[in-house]
């Protein structure tokens, strides 16, 4: 085994040693402070929790440090390990000859946004002369009848725009088994055999053509690689909360991604979208089983991405993080509450990995990724417990009087001050938390264009301070959110599958009060208890309590778009995607503005169900996309009864589920179309007042 092949192991050993050494050092210092008068059970608990959490934050710290050093010497994570050879050769190769499917699973998403994103991505792809090598699949699991029909119309427009240049396909699943992973698996099982690779996009994903082509080239050049993930950069949101997140991701994200890529190399992870996957091994080794037992820990695997990466690795395939590729974007949640809602879903998925992390045959690094995913939510519970135990310990210490004379000892037992050690430990902990931010800021100075794109040294520095302040206030709120999620999941409550909020919807006072009333109460009670019983601890606790105590106005304020826009005008939280947006984002913004100004045949207004019945084109389009399904006699009778109700009482008398049932049946839709036109000819009385008369 030569040095090059041992390099990945050596790097991971270095990371492991750094984390272990820093944690051991910090635990020893804290242990010395706590052991002054012997260990109590409380103190042992504090020490254990502190060690666990310190190791957690230290991992992120050393990752950022590695990333910063690599940026400093002008290298990226993966190039060091895989060598310039294959990647460089791949980059110089001609256009890829392999066939790639771009797949976008959608579930009740805004079709206009999905359409604009895909148009921008495909347009960018065509500018890279990639005709004939990419096909697009829109894989719909939408259950809302209006969204389903709007998707079909959007697909038809997309198909018309790219006809002859790039095939665009649409598939709607009547039953969304196994959610997103089931949707992707259905694609693989049906059409996977046609393609070498698939690039998975989320509904809010945007990828430049250059990035897509580069991903395919890298896969072609590295046959041992099963998956390449490109870190998605959050963009396009305008609320204060989202813009601070976008700024943080833009400044600190690159060094962190480079660090991750450096440590993990071919043992990296999959984040669910904006990644290219080699289809043959994925289909052979990534079929997900149902976990035994009931939800929330059993049943379908929710956070499928980590597990799929682990399964690919188990089968001997490499998983890479392409930290050097640009042109991969996504939209962050616009508000704190939306962020928490997304966290709720992820939390259940990640905690479910407790059953998978010890699965047979997984690589140690895959177990580490799964463990880190679990820890990202459990850490909130541990932070909370640490605060609680520290408060109790402070109170206990306040109750004990120091005894200067111990029986049998002639010399007085003077109290020893550990103020210096305690202050040093606090300073080290704070440094480990905030130094990565500072390193991200310093890394801006390595590239003048990047620094200017973030507003220059002064404004970027001001933004950094403001972002740190925001995160200090919001972190304890997120801790309380995540703790309540963990508790509710452990209590057996499962999450339902809801579409993500993707536009800049602001939080109302009522919404903020409902979401944060509990946080506010916890902060006030904890503040009162500590102030009354352990006043000296109260002042230490103030930074943690301030955020939750102000959570209601804070949540409302950070959701405001006008504040975000004002800061944008002042040059605060600027990112390169705002100052000099790439062409693909410019195209998306232009298309969204155009779509908002136009009304594509009433698709935005709703009432598409009525159009699907009466409009000859919409009806025909829907019928051609339906799969013929045999219906039982009782089901046919039920559908006929729905048609009769529709005729007598109009579409408002049907529920969403009933409309969906009718839309799923081609025979019913054909009959309804004919009935609608008979009604139009004979007068509206046949089909009920005002029904189906729009088209005529």
């Amino acid at each position, binding site marked *: 085994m030569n040095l090059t092949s041992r390099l990945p192991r050596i790097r991971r*050993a270095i990371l492991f040693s750094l984390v*272990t*050494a820093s944690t*051991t*050092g910090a635990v*020893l210092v804290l242990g010395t402070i706590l052991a002054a008068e012997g260990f109590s059970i409380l103190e042992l608990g504090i020490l254990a929790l502190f060690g666990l959490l310190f190791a957690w934050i230290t991992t992120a710290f050393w990752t950022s440090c590695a990333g910063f050093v690599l940026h400093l010497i002008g290298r990226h994570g993966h190039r060091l390990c895989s060598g310039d050879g294959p990647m460089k050769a791949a980059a110089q190769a001609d256009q890829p000859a392999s066939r790639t499917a771009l797949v976008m699973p959608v579930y009740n998403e805004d079709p206009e946004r999905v359409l604009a994103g895909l148009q921008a991505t495909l347009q960018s792809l065509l500018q890279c002369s990639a005709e004939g090598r990419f096909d697009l*699949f829109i894989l719909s699991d939408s259950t809302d009848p209006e969204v389903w029909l709007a998707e079909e119309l959007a*697909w*038809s427009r997309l*198909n*018309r725009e790219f*006809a*002859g240049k790039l*095939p665009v*396909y*649409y*598939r*709607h699943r009547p039953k969304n088994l196994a959610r997103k992973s089931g949707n992707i*698996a259905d694609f*693989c*099982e*049906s*059409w*996977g*055999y*046609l393609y070498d690779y698939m690039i998975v996009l989320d509904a809010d994903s945007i990828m430049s053509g250059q990035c897509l082509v580069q991903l395919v080239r890298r896969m072609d050049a590295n046959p041992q690689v099963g998956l390449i993930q490109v870190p998605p950069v959050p963009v396009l949101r305008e609320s204060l909360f989202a813009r601070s997140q976008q700024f943080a991701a833009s400044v600190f994200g690159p060094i962190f991604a480079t660090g991750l890529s450096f440590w993990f190399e071919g043992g990296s992870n999959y984040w669910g979208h904006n990644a290219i996957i080699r289809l043959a091994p994925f*289909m*052979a*080794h*990534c*079929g*997900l*089983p149902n*976990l035994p037992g009931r939800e929330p820990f059993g049943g379908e695997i929710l956070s499928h991405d980590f597990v799929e990466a682990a*399964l690919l690795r188990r089968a001997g395939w490499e998983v890479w993080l392409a930290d050097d590729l640009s042109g991969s974007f996504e939209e962050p949640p616009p508000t704190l509450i939306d962020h928490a809602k997304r966290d709720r879903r992820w939390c259940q998925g990640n905690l479910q990995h407790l*059953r998978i992390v*010890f*699965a*047979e*045959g997984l690589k140690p690094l895959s177990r580490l990724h799964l463990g880190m995913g679990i820890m990202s939510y459990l850490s909130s519970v541990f932070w909370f417990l640490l605060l609680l135990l520290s408060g109790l310990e402070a109170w206990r210490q306040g109750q004990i009087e120091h005894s200067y004379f111990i029986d049998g000892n002639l010399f007085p037992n003077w109290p020893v001050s550990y103020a210096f050690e305690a202050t040093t430990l606090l300073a080290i902990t704070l440094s480990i938390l905030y130094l990565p931010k500072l390193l991200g800021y310093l890394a801006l100075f390595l590239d003048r264009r990047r620094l200017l794109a973030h507003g220059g040294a002064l404004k970027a520095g001001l933004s950094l301070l403001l972002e740190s302040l925001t995160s200090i206030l919001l972190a304890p709120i997120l801790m309380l959110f995540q703790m309540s999620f963990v508790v509710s999941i452990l209590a057996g409550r499962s999450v339902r599958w809801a579409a993500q909020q993707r536009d800049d919807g602001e939080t109302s006072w009522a919404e903020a009060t409902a979401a944060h009333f509990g946080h506010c109460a916890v902060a006030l009670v904890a503040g009162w208890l500590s102030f009354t019983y352990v006043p000296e601890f109260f002042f230490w606790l103030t930074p943690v309590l301030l955020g939750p105590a102000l959570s209601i106005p804070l949540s409302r304020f950070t959701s405001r778009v006008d504040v975000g826009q004002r800061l944008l005008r002042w040059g605060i939280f600027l990112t390169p995607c705002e100052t000099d947006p790439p062409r693909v984002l410019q195209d998306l913004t232009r298309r969204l503005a155009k779509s908002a100004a136009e009304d594509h045949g009433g698709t935005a207004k709703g009432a598409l169900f009525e159009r699907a019945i*009466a*409009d*000859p*084109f919409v*009806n*025909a*389009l829907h*019928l*051609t*996309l339906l*799969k013929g399904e045999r219906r039982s006699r009782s089901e046919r009778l039920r559908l006929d009864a729905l048609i009769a109700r529709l005729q007598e009482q109009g579409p408002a008398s049907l529920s969403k589920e009933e409309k969906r049932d009718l839309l799923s049946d081609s025979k019913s839709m*054909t*009959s309804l179309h*004919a009935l609608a*036109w*008979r009604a*139009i*000819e004979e007068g509206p009385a046949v089909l009920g007042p005002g029904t189906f008369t729009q*088209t*005529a």
Partner: protein
Amino acid sequence: MPAKQTDSSSGGDEMARARLLTGLDRYLQAAGVNGESARHRLARAVLHSLRDQLPQSGKPDWQALIAAVDTVLSGEHQIDVQPDLLCRGRIAQGYGTVPQPLKAQLDRTANWGSPLPSRRPMPAQALSTWRPRLAWLGSPSIWRPAQGVMISLCCLAVVFVP
């Protein structure tokens, strides 16, 4: 008065035919046929294709009319349709000036929204929990990193504990 009866029935037929033509005209307009003369021509073609049904019922039902419209529009746009997907005639019309490749796609692919699927199931992977085995304890590949960790910890202890 047989002659008079024939007159009234032929007058009634004419009225029914006129109503039918009006209805067809509205339908074709809704389907995207904008030119009046084109609609007129297509409506006559539809009636011609339904000539076998007309004398019996006086007026065919709308389902038959719509199917005939689809057939005529398919012919107009020169697309080959399957019996169960007649509605493609309306789609071809709805697309207006359709580039040639899309027409080809309409012709050949049975399932228009996606290519022909071929079910190749993804086998569900085993994720049963790992359990330690006795043989594992004797594995030198496990012990070497562990030894490294132990040595690192001992060094740290020497540095920090005093």
